[in-house]
């Protein structure tokens, strides 16, 4: 794993946020710096160090590092290693922090104070941030910060980071010169920590901390050996139903809007290449992708709620046995679930896996989890070929098919993991040791912020890479112009037409026509582009100008056989992932052959799956 070192804010004293996983460091970081890093309710949300700028009450600028959570300064996984290296001044390109902000969960002092004592032994000045005091108070814990501060020999500031309470006091404290000096006696060696903390909690009257009763009550259902797994299956199933059922209306509005814009442009501009670029290239291409925004929003809404509430690690617990059967642990679940958004954050999240073999296997199968960039492709094909009707009153057929495709990806991933289990050193014991945080009500603000970030990412892709590729494809598909007296649509004489026909030789056995073959190439850069590319290709193949493919679905439903559509869906379950993913893998594993192996095996799987699907469908008479 190599870290790029980029200093966003030069100079100034350096502060580091240290704490157990999931104690609110990132929420505090966001409050102190005004940035919007992702926060959620599970251990390991932050896997890289992140830097921000903090302005103290007196207006002094400081640099603040948000470090991955650690239970101790004995690292057990690559993300905890980052934390240790920074604190010991060993991190590449980063000086040793001048001050450590030790964030502790006020409702769980016994465990969190161990890290405070360890930090104190580093010899760096420390400030204790007593976070989540509201949760502690709700459980009847009243902490005397003055006494705690005196006992530890460090300043103590109570905060509720998610609500911004105590932030002003913390910023004011950073202006006091004595904050930046070490004082008080050095704690004894580590083995004595347990007794030190026992004594300290006894003095403060906190020896008997109350357990999280409300969370336990929820867990009695959620972790129930029979009800728990059924509930998990039901939740996942409902999410996919909702992705289709809930998005229909807004999707219709976006499509109507796109069609209207296309028609307006057609009316106002004279026939010619400018109009073709705007209507056939940009409007047909981008509009086609944009129509899938509602579905992406719905999917992320559910993922964010699961992250925020604390349900994710429970799901990992419930699936641990299943993952174990293919040689992985429940710890791989969260990175894999993140991959449903995009494989890149999933691959980064694999840093929380301590076993190097498990980490590599998790990275290798992460692209098989259906990322949100594939959702538009699935949705287009399902919308075109699967009738929207109900199955047995409750289930929506399109949602069922979508669920099936996601399951196909998961089954594929498990098969690959199972195979790797038999090919690599077997019989390893892997650790689980995973914290189950107390449940929190998802904060509407965090959910809204998370959704907004996803919308921004999506729109940036549409306006950036997807736009560029769409225009590039339009150019290739429009030039050179057909010779005079040509009878076939112009695109067949263009560069793209020729490339597509050459590629069709490779893809013909799996049922792809030349139009699909062209669209697959820009799809390597960003998978949604397959949709916009098909939009452009069919718009340019259309005979009349009015037939511009604002409605791609009916066009492909008319041109493709069911066998071809099924083969393309099968292809996309495994399809070689985008180049950005391969680059991330290269950076994370730091071995040149891994990304090649990954692209190779996924391409082979995709081709095989599409081939089998196509041939079976033909045999069933669906050609």
């Amino acid at each position, binding site marked *: 794993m190599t870290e790029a070192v980029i200093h966003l804010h030069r100079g100034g004293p350096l502060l580091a946020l240290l704490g157990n996983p999931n104690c609110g460091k990132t929420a505090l970081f966001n409050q102190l710096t005004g940035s919007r890093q992702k926060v959620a309710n599970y251990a390991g949300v932050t896997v890289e160090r992140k830097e921000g700028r903090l302005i103290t009450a007196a207006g002094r600028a400081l640099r603040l590092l948000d470090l991955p959570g650690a*239970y*101790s300064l*004995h690292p*057990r996984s690559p993300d905890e290693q980052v934390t240790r290296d920074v604190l010991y001044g060993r991190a590449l390109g980063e000086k040793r922090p001048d001050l450590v902000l030790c964030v502790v969960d006020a*409702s*769980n002092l*016994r*465990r969190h104070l*161990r890290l405070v004592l360890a930090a104190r032994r580093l010899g760096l000045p420390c400030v204790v941030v007593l976070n989540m005091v509201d949760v502690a108070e709700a459980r009847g814990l009243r902490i005397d910060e003055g006494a705690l501060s005196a006992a530890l020999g460090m300043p103590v500031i109570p905060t509720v980071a998610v609500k911004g309470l105590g932030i002003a006091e913390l910023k004011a404290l950073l202006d006091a010169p004595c904050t930046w000096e070490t004082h008080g006696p050095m704690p004894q060696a580590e083995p004595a920590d*347990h007794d030190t903390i*026992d004594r300290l909690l006894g003095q403060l009257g906190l020896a008997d*901390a*109350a*357990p*999280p009763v409300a*969370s*336990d009550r929820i*867990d009695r259902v959620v*972790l*129930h*050996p*029979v009800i728990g797994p059924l509930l998990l299956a039901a939740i996942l199933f409902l999410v996919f139903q909702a992705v289709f059922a809930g998005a229909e209306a807004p999707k219709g509005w976006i499509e109507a809007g796109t069609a209207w814009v296309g028609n307006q442009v057609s009316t106002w501009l004279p026939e010619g290449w400018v109009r073709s670029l705007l209507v056939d290239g940009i409007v047909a291409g981008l509009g086609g992708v944009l129509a899938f925004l509602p579905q992406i929003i719905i999917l992320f809404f559910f993922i964010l709620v699961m992250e925020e509430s604390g349900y994710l*690690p429970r799901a*990992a*617990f*419930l699936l*641990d*046995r299943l993952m174990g059967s293919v040689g992985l642990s*429940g710890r791989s679940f969260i990175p894999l679930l993140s991959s449903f958004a995009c494989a890149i954050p999933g691959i980064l999240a694999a840093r929380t896996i301590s076993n190097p073999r498990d980490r590599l296997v998790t990275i290798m199968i992460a692209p098989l989890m259906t990322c949100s960039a594939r959702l538009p492709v699935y949705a287009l094909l399902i919308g075109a070929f699967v009738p929207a009707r109900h199955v047995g009153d409750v289930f929506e057929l399109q949602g069922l098919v979508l669920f099936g495709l996601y399951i196909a990806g998961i089954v594929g991933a498990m098969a690959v993991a199972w195979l790797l289990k038999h090919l690599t050193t077997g019989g390893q*014991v892997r*650790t*689980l*040791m*995973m*914290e*189950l*945080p*107390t449940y929190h009500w998802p904060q509407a603000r965090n959910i809204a912020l998370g959704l907004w970030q996803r919308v921004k990412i999506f729109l940036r892709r549409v306006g950036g890479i997807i736009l560029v590729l769409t225009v590039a494809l339009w150019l290739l598909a429009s030039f050179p112009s057909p010779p005079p007296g040509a009878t076939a649509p112009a695109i067949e004489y263009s560069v793209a037409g020729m490339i597509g026909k050459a590629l069709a030789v490779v893809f013909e056995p799996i049922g792809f026509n030349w139009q699909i073959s062209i669209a697959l190439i820009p799809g390597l850069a960003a998978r949604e582009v397959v949709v916009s590319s098909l939009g452009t290709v069919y718009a340019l193949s259309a005979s009349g100008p009015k037939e511009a493919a604002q409605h791609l679905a009916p066009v492909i439903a008319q041109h493709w056989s069911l066998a071809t559509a099924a083969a393309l869906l099968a292809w996309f379950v495994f399809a070689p992932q985008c180049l950005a993913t391969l680059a991330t893998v290269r950076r994370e594993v730091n071995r040149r052959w891994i990304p090649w192996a990954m692209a190779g095996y996924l391409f082979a799987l995709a081709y095989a799956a599409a081939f089998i699907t196509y041939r079976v469908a033909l045999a069933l008479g669906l050609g």
Partner: protein
Amino acid sequence: MAEPDGPSLDTLGRGQAATVQRLEVPPDQPDWAQQMQDLGFVRGERVQMLHRALPGGDPLVVRVGTSTYALRRAEAACVRLNHPQ
């Protein structure tokens, strides 16, 4: 150790509680001692079995102090307990 060996954490039934006596990790997993200690499995700490998955009760969910962890059975087996009172 003068005290007789108590049961290990993985043998507790659902809802049963005890206190930690010591950690006894398998020789091929030397890192577990430190890791379990970091999570709060230290002498005298109260532990309770909360949930066990089906089938076979592996993995399981335990409470240590006020924290909740999912552990493998092999991990829980490292935690030697004092005899319940």
